[in-house]
């Protein structure tokens, strides 16, 4: 598990939980997100992600504003993580973005149907993340 943020900005920065079993991809995703001014916590699989989300809630720390997860992971895959989050009364409002290296329409459909905010293809680019960030911040403003 890894967590990082600038001093004194904890309450304001957009906090993203990035989940991927590939270390290369975790590091890459973390950099893309930080470059879009996000605070990033990484998890190497669905189970760790769930543990983090629950512990966060219990300790009353700053909420996770978005979850971005790889689809293909051993054990609990991204779709299963999505389902668990969406079926949790505490976490269901956290937007979940699924990323995958495979462009499979049936897969994309089922993720969107289960409530994923977006489905993006890997490898991600800086422009993808910037766009996502803007989009989600706007949504947040509207809800307020």
């Amino acid at each position, binding site marked *: 598990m890894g967590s990082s943020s600038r001093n004194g900005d904890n309450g304001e920065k957009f906090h993203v939980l990035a989940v991927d079993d590939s270390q290369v991809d975790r590091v890459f995703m973390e950099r893309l997100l930080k470059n879009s001014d996000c605070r990033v916590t990484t998890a190497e699989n669905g189970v760790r992600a769930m543990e983090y989300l629950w512990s966060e809630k219990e300790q009353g720390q700053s909420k996770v504003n978005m979850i971005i997860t790889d689809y293909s992971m051993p054990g609990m895959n991204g779709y299963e993580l999505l389902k668990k989050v969406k079926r949790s009364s505490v976490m269901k409002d956290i937007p979940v973005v699924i990323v995958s290296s495979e462009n499979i329409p049936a897969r994309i459909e089922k993720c969107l149907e289960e409530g994923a905010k977006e489905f993006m293809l890997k*490898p991600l*680019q*800086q422009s993808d993340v910037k766009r996502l960030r803007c989009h989600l911040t706007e949504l947040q403003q509207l809800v307020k």
Partner: protein
Amino acid sequence: MDVVQLQRRYTEYLTSLFTDGFLDEQFKQLQELQDENSPDFVFEVVNLFFEDSERLLNELAKALVQPSIDFKKVDAHVHQLKGSSSSIGAGRVKNVCVAFRNICEEQNIEGCLRCMQQIKHEYSLVKNKLENLIRLEQQIIQAGGEIPVVE
């Protein structure tokens, strides 16, 4: 060698890696992420890629000498290797992985063994080239220069 010569050599070398398909556009994304806040980013990610790949190649080699090959396992390893090579822009390794997955689906043992040889070969090529590239970068920096951006 002075900075300008080193920079020229770097530019020529990197351009050739793109031209020959060893690296693709995604590598440029990686380079763009390197800045004063993370000056060793490319180095860090490339090293993770080396670690990951070597582990996966070992696992693949083990899986392929089993008396009864578990094609699902082989496919899972290749999928991971495809993912990380794709993320850093190692184009040729990624392409062999794509072919390898198709062969796995057909459960073609000889095909898999051939792909394994190809992957090992492509990986060792790109590893060597990335190491050369990083060495050139380090020489440029030590000589007080900046790493040129290659379009």
